[in-house]
């Protein structure tokens, strides 16, 4: 369905084309940003069956809210904000739902499949990263995901999470403390 290559390269032109009903233009946006969304969603939720559903929801929400995109920020930032909000909502929803059952059930929902990596070493690296992420408090996990997986600066992290830079800096040090404690046990 999605064209292999699309001739529009500029973000704002792609957005305009989408708003004019060009489905292929939206397909191009999905192609360009799906990896970025995967890093956020799977980093936060683990590589569970639900992560891909949330990823799809991110782009569906984007499509429906594209008319509100004013182009003041980068499109990637706009998509990232949607991904972060949906992921955090999903975590809250899971917490509410599974708190009715047992902690074991909650843990089962967090189980992830390790991607098929080539070497034992890279599998071990993935396990460390995924286990560390999932063991962290969600408000610190999102900071780690933005920094470690997305490579965002403090300023960019603050912009995406709609937080003051001071708050992000304070969370960075608290997250680092929690991360150290988690990694000692791994």
């Amino acid at each position, binding site marked *: 369905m999605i064209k292999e290559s699309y001739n529009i390269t500029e973000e704002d032109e792609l957005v305009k084309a989408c708003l004019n009903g060009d489905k292929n233009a*939206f397909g191009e946006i*999905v192609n360009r940003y799906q990896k970025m969304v995967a890093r956020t969603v799977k980093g936060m939720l683990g590589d569970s069956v639900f992560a891909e559903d949330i990823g*799809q929801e991110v782009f569906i929400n984007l499509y429906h809210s594209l008319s509100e995109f004013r182009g003041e920020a980068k499109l990637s930032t706009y998509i990232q904000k949607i991904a972060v909000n949906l992921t955090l909502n999903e975590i809250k929803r899971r917490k509410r739902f599974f708190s009715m059952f047992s902690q074991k*059930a909650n843990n089962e929902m967090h189980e992830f499949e390790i*991607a098929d990596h080539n070497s034992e070493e890279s599998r071990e*690296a993935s396990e*460390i*990263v995924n286990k560390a992420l999932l063991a962290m408090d969600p408000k610190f996990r999102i900071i780690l995901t933005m*920094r470690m*997986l997305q490579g965002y600066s403090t300023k960019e992290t603050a912009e995406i999470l709609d937080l003051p830079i001071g708050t992000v800096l304070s969370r960075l040090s608290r997250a680092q403390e929690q991360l150290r404690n988690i990694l000692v046990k791994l």
Partner: protein
Amino acid sequence: MDASEIKKLIISSLNADTNTVEVSRKLEEEGISYNFSHNFGDKVLNKLFSAGLTINREVEFVKYMNFAFYRIALTGVAAIIVLLISIFLMQGSLSLNSFLGLSDSYDESIVCLLTGN
């Protein structure tokens, strides 16, 4: 990169002055990458534009309900087994009277209770 180096790298990503782009690049080189399925884009477009649109949340709700039902059913079976064992230990049998909490012998207090005399 061994496990301790990976751990150091992860921890360093939370230093305010770290070059996080470099951290994420190194991690990707180590095989830590996240992708959706190969036909992810088509799935999104199908959901958006196909006539028989299935709302994602409904599917998810069914998944959750199945999971919840499984948990509830298991808990229920466990409770029934515990109840049967406790009845057997207390009454010495699993007869209907045992279930109803009545002993086999005639108990006139029940008659009194039912008739009021």
